[in-house]
């Protein structure tokens, strides 16, 4: 390994112009395209969710039943929840790669993904709660396994992010976080199993997707929103990863600088002795 003093970088800095621009430092052609696709997709998503689809109303024995317009909350809630699980799955995979391949790259992916996962899980919980109020007549339904599992997952993600912020060298932090991150997936399975047994009967919309009452365009919108969620996740993950990379590079710089300063301290001292 070489120790670069910050001074050696000026030359290459002058050679490559700041192509990325100041505003979008983590932007590249891939993310620009992906971002355009996601934003265009979001417009269609809003149109489908509010314009094209009908409320969920069915006539049974002459009475109107169903979720009515509250079903439109599903087009946020379901993708948020699935994105959260996807994100934490990536975190666990990344953690395994850190432990078995000693990969720094995956450590940054794991950390970035967990942050997005925590945001998604929070959104899934909030929208789920808001949906539950009119439909189940309660902000929080204890009989719902998936909501409970997501809540515990969200709390564990806070723990994981707290562990990432603990002190230590980059390497110590990476390994420590990797162990917590790898355990996340096992924890979620254990929590899910136990909560499922615990809530003898769940009143959640069992398999909303497969259910016949959400048909045609509504089902399509739901699938579509899940895909859009995954695409938005990928877009955010790339940006967040690049931010993590910048953080890491800055850290390494800071250490290079600190080494130079520390050495200067040493030289001053030895000069002091000899004079």
């Amino acid at each position: 390994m070489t120790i670069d003093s910050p001074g050696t970088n000026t030359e290459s800095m002058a050679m490559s112009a700041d192509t990325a621009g100041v505003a979008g430092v983590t932007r590249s052609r891939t993310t620009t395209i992906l971002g355009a696709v996601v934003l265009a997709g979001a417009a269609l998503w809003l149109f489908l969710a509010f314009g094209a689809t009908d409320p969920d109303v069915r006539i049974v024995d002459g009475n109107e039943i169903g979720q009515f317009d509250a079903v439109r909350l599903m087009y946020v809630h379901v993708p948020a929840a699935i994105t959260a699980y996807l994100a934490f799955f990536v975190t666990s995979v990344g953690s395994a790669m850190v432990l078995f391949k000693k990969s720094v790259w995956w450590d940054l992916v794991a950390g970035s993904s967990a942050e997005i996962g925590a945001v998604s899980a929070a959104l899934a919980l909030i929208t789920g709660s808001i949906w539950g109020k009119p439909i189940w007549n309660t902000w929080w339904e204890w009989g719902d396994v998936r909501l409970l599992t997501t809540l515990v997952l969200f709390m564990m993600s806070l723990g994981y992010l707290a562990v990432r912020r603990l002190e230590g060298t980059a390497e110590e932090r990476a390994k420590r976080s990797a162990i917590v991150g790898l355990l996340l997936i096992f924890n979620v399975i254990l929590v899910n199993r136990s909560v499922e047994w615990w809530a003898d009967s769940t009143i959640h919309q069992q398999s909303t997707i497969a259910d016949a009452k959400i048909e045609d365009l509504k089902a399509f919108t739901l699938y579509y929103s899940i895909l859009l969620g995954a695409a938005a996740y990928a877009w955010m993950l790339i940006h967040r990863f690049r931010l993590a990379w910048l953080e890491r590079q800055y850290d390494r710089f800071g250490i290079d600088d600190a080494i130079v300063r520390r050495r200067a301290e040493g030289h001053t001292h030895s000069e002091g002795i000899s004079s």
Partner: protein
Amino acid sequence: MTLFEEIALIAGKDLRIEGRSKVALNQIAPFALLVIVLFGFALDADRVALQTFAPGLYWMTVLLASILAVHRSVAVEAGEGAREGLLLSGLRPASVYLGKVVALVAQLLIVAIVLLGGVLIFYSASISDPVLLVTSLLGAVLGVGAAGTLYGALLGSQRARETVLPILLLPVLAPVLIAATRAFGDAMGTTTSDGWQWTQLLYAFAAIYCAFGVLSHGVLMEEN
């Protein structure tokens, strides 16, 4: 030394320290009893409610007490730098982990038994299936000890340990709380769930965490 001898050495050391300092017996167990009594105030000393919720209140209290016990278990090594001594001694990380688990489980058992007496007296709980009660108690305490030792070692001598440990450990222990409460509910006759099924879950939890702890403790000892 064999693995077993190393485990016995570490566990024996921790238990000897407990024998001298009596932190679990004289501080953690009384704290747990106090919580049980305070729950009684909080629930307006409603005899029926206390009896019904005795299993849940009991295990909630055990979890709170276990946070303290894990802190103590880590502090024993962190205080005068003994964890570095353990690294220098060349003991296998797996045996250090298992030794710490055995000692922590033993201390948690002391607390749990004292607390059980408290629940029987203060909440008028009754035991209808002692075998199930003891089996599930042991399984739950094993799980708490295995996970607690793992996450405790992870935080090591970090200054933020006291605040990070609960947020890290309590969500992980949620399945133990659920399963142990249900098993106790069956053993105390307050619910009709199948306690043995829950007890299986408790032992599965303990096994998974023990395996993980054995595999990861080398990394954890190095990095903290």
